[in-house]
């Protein structure tokens, strides 16, 4: 009976990816927020290239993190409201597998586009040339943790009225290690110091998030089903 499990996982994955980019999906919303918010920093800080270059990696990482947080708010709430969460709970995959599929779908559909567009925003922020490669790499290694940990916050607040603000309060402190090691990797690379230590730590944080994320999300979703 193992084939249906992977088929079920794929089905949930494809469904969520399509929904993320369908009308009213979070894909476009996160992307546009990412671009607008980064340009806001330029307006706030001023166009002076040296200053922008100095804060480029930090700003891009923080705004990518916030864009990820924003798009996670509806990760389970949409299914909770229209009742499909009940069907998902009855799928052969079980809630932990469902959570894993939805987290992967969120990362692929919403976060990867942010990573792909990050170099463009690096240009806006006058990021140093040697920073682009490491920026992409650090985002690639670090952002899965944002989806995994954010999923727990989304699952915990799925049945909470106006749960978005509460979710941000729960999740943002847990994003700090990913942010520190992510930006640290870029700064290290640009400072001509090896960034492998930061990347390794970033990967470690993501692995821990991988271990906790689906499991804790499923436990929280079981609460919402009651």
């Amino acid at each position, binding site marked *: 009976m193992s084939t249906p499990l992977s088929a079920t996982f794929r089905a949930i994955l494809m469904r969520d990816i399509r929904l993320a980019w369908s009308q009213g999906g979070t894909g476009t919303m996160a992307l546009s927020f990412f671009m607008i918010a980064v340009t806001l920093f330029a307006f706030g800080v001023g166009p002076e290239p040296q200053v922008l270059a100095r804060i480029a990696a930090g700003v891009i990482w923080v705004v990518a993190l916030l864009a990820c947080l924003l798009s996670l708010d509806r990760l389970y709430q949409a299914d909770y409201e229209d009742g499909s969460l009940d069907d998902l709970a009855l799928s052969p995959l079980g809630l932990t597998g469902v959570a894993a599929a939805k987290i992967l779908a969120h990362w692929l559909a919403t976060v990867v586009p942010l990573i792909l567009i990050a170099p463009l925003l690096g240009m806006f922020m006058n990021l140093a040339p040697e920073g682009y490669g490491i920026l992409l790499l650090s985002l690639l290694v670090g952002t899965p943790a944002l989806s995994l*940990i954010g999923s*727990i916050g989304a699952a*915990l*607040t799925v*049945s*909470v*009225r106006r*749960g978005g603000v*509460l979710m941000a*309060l*729960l999740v*943002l*402190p*847990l994003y*700090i*290690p990913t942010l*520190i*090691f992510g930006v*640290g990797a870029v*700064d290290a690379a640009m400072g001509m110091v090896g960034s492998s230590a930061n990347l390794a*730590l970033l990967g470690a*944080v993501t692995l*821990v998030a991988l271990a*906790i994320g689906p499991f*804790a999300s499923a*436990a*929280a979703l079981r*609460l919402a089903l*009651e």
Partner: protein
Amino acid sequence: MHRFANPAEFNRLADRILPWAIAVMAISLVAGLYLALIGSPPDYQQGESVRIMYIHVPAAWMAMFTYMVMAGASFVAIVWRHPLAELAGKAAAPIGATFTALALITGSLWGKPMWGTYWQWDGRMTSVLVLFFLYLGYMAIWHGFDDEEKAGRAAAILALVGVANIPIIKFSVDWWNTLHQPASVFRMGGPTIADSMLWPLFIMATAFQAYFVVVFLWRMKLEINQRKLSVMNRAEVYG
């Protein structure tokens, strides 16, 4: 473990412990304050301002200790579905948050004469700040649900996720701190703490610990009574 499942049983136990805890708190507080303010010598480098350490350090210890108590209670609440364990988390959180806030305030008051600024992104202080946010998140989730039992289990999950992340956050903040912060010559509490300073620190820590037990038990009674009230009201509604 289920012996305490019954609130009346818990109240009896609490009433037996409270007088002792209050006594220990009073004695150690008086002794601690005397030693902290009068009995111990000023620091050769910081002068009298070192006396703030006798509040700052115990408060920081209690901030971390209380979160561990909450995490322990949350574990019991989830594994054994123990209603009192859930309430223990809710009762402890405000105390922990207060200790964390005091650690931050006294830390910045202590830092000002030494570093010239009220806030220095020092590794330890930054970790305490993040711990404060974790407390805010924990206390906030309790008010997110209409059904207290759901709120209790959600808060328990959050506390466990939080405690799993604390060492990672602590490590990343220290790592971040060493990158951006030249090793500050002045370390919180000086390179080595003289014996004469250890005693007030230890006694004040005992006083804070006793204080925690006393206020925790009071808050547990409060939370149990509140749960009883909402249960009775609901019984009225559903008959």
